[in-house]
């Protein structure tokens, strides 16, 4: 369970580039919640995810994972609890390393890394089975460098790496935004499947209103560093894009000006 309490973050404090990114965001995710996060550019969606991931320290507030405040932990220590997939497919994998080596690194997330072998024979077998599930033919390319894979394949692999050890929370940061529509749909489908099968708690940032509505059991809308809408349960199931646009205008007093979100 994730509890975000009143977190604030200002970038470049005291300079001309000062930008208040999060203004007291609070959000509680119950176990098994799959929350989609939507909002315009600069609304603070990715900033909220990065705050949870610990990319930088927050200014104030607390972040509790299963009751433990992780706000003081640096990124690599927090990684133990989190699975992450990024917007840029290049970001989630090590391009110059083999597919199986990438998986071996992910399997050891949160464990101390010693002088034992970086990958074992048994693991290679397990990885092969897991890759088969992805249905991308990667099980026959275990020793290929990840740099040779397409963006969609890399995102699928990153998803597998993020969930190869069940994380307390899965963070998906616009992980389909850089893919073509067909591949994006496939990766989303895979995300749904993995989240459902492992009963993961997940947060997915997206620019796409349709995706935000059709995926997950809860929808959160952000604007100017705050959460302005939080829709769950039956209401979420009946939600349409028109509803969402209307609600946004009501709470923020302005039109949802984002072509990408409207058009897609």
């Amino acid at each position, binding site marked *: 369970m994730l509890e975000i309490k009143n977190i604030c973050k200002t970038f470049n404090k005291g300079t001309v580039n000062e930008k208040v990114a999060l203004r007291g965001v609070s959000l509680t995710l119950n176990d098994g919640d799959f929350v989609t996060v939507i909002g315009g550019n600069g609304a603070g969606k990715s900033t909220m995810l990065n705050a949870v*991931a610990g990319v930088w320290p927050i200014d104030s507030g607390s972040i509790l994972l299963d009751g433990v405040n992780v706000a003081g932990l640096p*990124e*690599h*220590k927090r*990684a*133990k609890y*989190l699975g*992450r997939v*990024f917007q840029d497919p*290049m*970001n*989630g*994998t*090590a*391009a*110059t*390393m083999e597919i199986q*080596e990438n998986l*071996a*690194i*992910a399997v*050891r*997330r*949160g*464990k101390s*890394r*010693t*002088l*034992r*072998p*970086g*990958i074992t024979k048994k693991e290679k077998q397990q990885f092969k089975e897991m890759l088969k599930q992805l249905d991308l033919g990667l099980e026959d390319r275990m020793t290929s460098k990840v740099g040779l894979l397409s963006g969609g394949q890399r995102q699928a692999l990153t998803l597998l*790496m993020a969930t190869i050890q069940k994380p307390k929370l899965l963070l998906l940061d616009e992980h389909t935004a850089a893919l073509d529509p067909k591949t994006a749909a496939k990766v989303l489908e895979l995300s749904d499947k993995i989240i459902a099968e492992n009963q993961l708690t997940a947060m997915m940032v997206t620019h796409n209103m349709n995706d935000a509505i059709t995926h997950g059991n809860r929808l959160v809308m952000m604007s100017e560093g705050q959460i302005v809408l939080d829709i769950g349960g039956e209401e979420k199931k009946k939600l349409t894009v028109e509803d969402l646009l209307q609600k946004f205008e009501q709470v923020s007093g302005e039109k949802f000006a984002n072509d990408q979100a409207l058009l897609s």
Partner: protein
Amino acid sequence: MFDLEILDLFRAMPGSVAQGLIWGIMAIGVFITYKILNFADLTVDGTLGLGGAVAVMLILAGCPPYLVLIASFISGILAGLITGVLHTLLGIPDILAGILTQIALYSINLNIMGKSNQAVSVDQYDLVVSLRYISEAIMVGVIFLIIIIALLYWYFGTEQGYTIRCTGCNENMSRAQGISTGKAKVIGLALSNGLVGLSGALIAQYQGNADVNMGRGAIVIGLAAVIIGEVIGTAIFGKYMNFALKLLFAAIGAIIYYLVITFVLWLGLPSDNMKLFSAIVVALFLAVPYLKNKYNTSFAKAAKKGAE
């Protein structure tokens, strides 16, 4: 007359091979930072001198020349640690962190030796390698390289070795996967400089003295070796270049470098111009792949194709 000159060249070759083998250990150190960690580490110039200075002074103080190698290895590790701390804990950019350690080591090396040059004679001490006994030196160099390559091949296949490779490839991803990238960098730098220190100790014994300037330009030789080795290795083995072969070819690159140097000296190039020559060789080897790629996919070509 001409025949005699060719004989001179052949006579000089074993010496170049021996030198190349010993410098090859340094080249493998440079490979770790430059290729695996993606870190342009300029500490090397200072570390090589440090390894030499420590070795010679300890031998003069009566330590057995073999044990001295361990001390030089450790002194190199310390130098790498300092660069690592400057970079990771104090946020100094990689090249600058290396330069700072390198320049500090110049003074430290002078302090260790008490003057700018200290000699050890192979007549008085039982040195590990010496240019007096070249075939022995070649054998020792080969044995050292085999052991070092085997150990590194094992190490970079361990969980810890993976963290260093991963950090060199993608820092964001490494942190997201729970790897402390700072720690990985410090370990990589320490290991690399340890090897450079060891190489410095062997070089000092081989040439019979340690000089405060012996490391000047070492990084360029190291880069030359790594790049020459990579080009030749890839030409021979293509995609079958595995990790052990890559390390081996860094060392082979150093041997080739010294053979080429011997050759151009034999041609009559003044030895004062050696560093200029080294710089040109490295610049060429770095530029050729880039220019080749640019030639294959140039705007001028695209315009021509479009006009056809």
